[in-house]
């Protein structure tokens, strides 16, 4: 035993050295794969995180591609999240096409070469990127590397309960944060014991889609400076936003809000508190219209663009935009055909509209949102306008998967629970933490 262990250790050390030096399957490099000939029989593997009806909608769209290219058969596998995609790339078993719902991972995928650079294909096939809004272009590329195309988007708007509005004598949805706070106070109803019966608007960060990425653009709060540095401490929108949030929290009382949100239904369940009439206004994505249709069809509600800070009233109409990304992983076997599919899925109106109708999301080209085939409604239509609005924006891509969101949200929670009172110092400290975390990446 005593003799065997050192031998085993040496062998293992050699294995480690070999594995550390190997680079796995190589990327396609600068040479572009040609589009397949119609005589080439190809089976493409497509991975996505979709399940159930979403996967069925994707498969319908993929079937449309197969009809156009009968020589290309597609094997679609759902429930493949980013962890599995990464593992497959590392193991040399990557699919030909990967669809990820986590756009935060794009910075990592582009910077590491996990997803192949599509710039050459886009240029060769003269793909017109101008049909994709700038905000969407931004979240699908990293430092000039376009390693993915957008495949449906989410944007955010204000949902309001029309019956509660009428009861409170409010005739139109608020357009500024001051109006929102005023209306929220009017709409709030208390129980006899002082607890909240109906909340006009819940200002708690972390509750439902009260996420910083949704709130920040409405305040002009920038995540990064023009030099690419974290700018929580230097962009005045952040202090404005947190001051407003604290003021509205104090109106309700932090403890009462905590009791109210703790008892609220789950975000995507039928007992979501907006759907049950216990919240009069909330920020949410276009996908909520689908949930309300199926879970609370009798709810009388309206949608509108998110309010903006009073001094940014000219910017009304936009929101944060995020969404799915589609790319060719490193090690894909049929790169040419994979690009052909991606081009079809992400730039052609018909497949985008088919998929958007199935998932109740926004199709990602300006042509597609005008398509008469796109199923829309009075409450869905505002989200199409928000998507096309030039004031809409998206999160910056970083190589550590959006770790800055966790740091910023942690600070926000600390702020709203009274864990810190020095807003300026806290935001600057968060900047340092974000910068420090990015330094973990290799130079």
């Amino acid at each position: 035993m005593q003799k065997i262990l050192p031998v085993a250790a040496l062998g293992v050390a050699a294995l480690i050295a070999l594995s550390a030096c190997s680079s796995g399957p190589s990327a396609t490099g600068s040479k572009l794969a040609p589009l397949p000939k119609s005589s080439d029989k190809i089976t493409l593997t497509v991975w996505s995180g979709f399940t159930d009806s979403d996967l069925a909608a994707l498969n319908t769209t993929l079937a449309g591609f197969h009809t156009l290219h009968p020589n290309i058969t597609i094997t679609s596998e759902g429930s493949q999240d980013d962890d599995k995609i990464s593992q497959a790339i590392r193991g040399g078993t990557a699919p030909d096409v990967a669809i990820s719902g986590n756009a935060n991972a794009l910075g990592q995928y582009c910077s590491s070469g996990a997803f192949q650079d599509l710039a050459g294909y886009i240029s060769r096939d003269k793909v017109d990127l101008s049909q994709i809004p700038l905000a969407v272009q931004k979240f699908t590329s990293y430092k000039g590397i376009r390693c993915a195309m957008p495949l449906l988007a989410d944007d955010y708007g204000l949902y309001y309960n029309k019956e509660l509005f009428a009861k409170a004598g409010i005739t139109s949805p608020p357009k500024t944060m001051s109006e929102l706070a005023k209306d929220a106070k009017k709409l709030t109803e208390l129980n006899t014991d002082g607890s909240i019966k109906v909340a006009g608007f819940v200002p708690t960060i972390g509750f439902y889609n009260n996420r910083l990425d949704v709130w920040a653009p409405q305040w002009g709060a920038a995540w990064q400076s023009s030099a690419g540095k974290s700018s929580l401490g230097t962009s005045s929108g952040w202090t404005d936003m947190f001051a407003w949030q604290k003021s509205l929290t104090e109106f309700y009382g932090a403890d009462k809000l905590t009791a109210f949100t703790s008892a609220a239904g789950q975000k995507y369940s039928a007992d979501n508190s907006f759907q049950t009439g216990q919240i009069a206004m909330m920020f949410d994505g276009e996908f909520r219209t689908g949930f309300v249709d199926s879970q609370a069809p009798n709810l009388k509600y309206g949608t509108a663009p998110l309010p903006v800070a009073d001094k940014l009233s000219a910017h009304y109409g936009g929101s944060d935009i995020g969404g799915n990304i589609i790319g060719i992983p490193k090690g894909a076997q049929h790169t040419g055909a994979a690009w052909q599919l991606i081009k079809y899925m992400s730039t052609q109106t018909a497949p985008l509209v088919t998929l958007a109708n199935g998932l109740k999301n926004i199709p990602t080209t300006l042509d597609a949102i005008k398509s008469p085939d796109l199923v829309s409604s009075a409450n869905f239509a505002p989200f199409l306008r928000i998507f096309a609005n030039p004031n809409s924006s998206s999160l910056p891509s970083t190589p550590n998967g959006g770790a800055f969101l966790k740091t910023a949200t942690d600070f926000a929670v600390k702020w709203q629970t009274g864990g810190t009172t020095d807003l300026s110092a806290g935001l600057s400290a968060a900047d340092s933490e974000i910068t420090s975390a990015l330094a973990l990446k290799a130079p």
Partner: protein
Amino acid sequence: MSPWIIGFGVFFVYPLLATVFLSFTSYDLISDPIWVGVKNYVFMFTSDPLVWTAIRNTTYLVVAITIGRVGYALASAMVLSKVRRGSGVFRTLFYLPALAPPVAAALAFVFLFNPGTGPVNQVLGWFGIKGLLWFNDPLLAKPALTVLALWASGEIMVILLAALLDVPTEYYEAAALDGAGSFTRFWHITLPTIAPVLTFAVINSIIVGLQYFTEAVVAGAVASGSSDAVGSGTQLGYPDNSTLTFPMWLYQQGFHYYNMGYASTMAIVLFIVSAIFTVILVRQLRKSGMTEED
């Protein structure tokens, strides 16, 4: 070369050495690892804003789970060892929660402890006690997780029950003849006899606490109302990072922030701490004669 050597090398030595190597690199899971020396270790102890929170939370859970789990399991086992009629039914009932999948158990507990609609607060209300926020309160979230761990401590209870039933009855009879009371019998006969098993239970509970992951992730995600157990991870550790454990932060760093080099550093630290407790276990077992000397 015997088969176990192959298994030991492939499944233990290789991963361990690979992790040690990766802990000195910047590795994003896709590109080749780049040697960065002790940078990850320095970051961990000087710059990571959440690692100390995670260490504090894990330390709390280790202490609370170990004391509570062993105490609860011992008490249950002692009661069950005395039951004569229907002992099989009671033993099954006490053991059953250990078979519940951790995700299902965590979901059930968050439902039971829901501040607004959960039965726990409703029962407290019958006695005029104002309901608590449980998983939504940074001060109570960890105690609630501890209760969940106690509920599922059936396997320790079964081991201790077996040990208790193994204590020779003649010892008790002789002590009773000498006038020893029940506490004296427990202190001088039961405890020394079951000490090796108790030591195992303690170390096992320490390791359970050190590796606490699934229940904390699920409970935090569900209690936050977000349903986003993974994804952006902004709600990880909800509320206010009070349930963020060391393994959770390690996983987040490795698989969501793509800092596998740094996650390996954290894994090494966790391994060293676990190894220290394991050495203590082995020494204690040897001292008490439970294992044969090599």
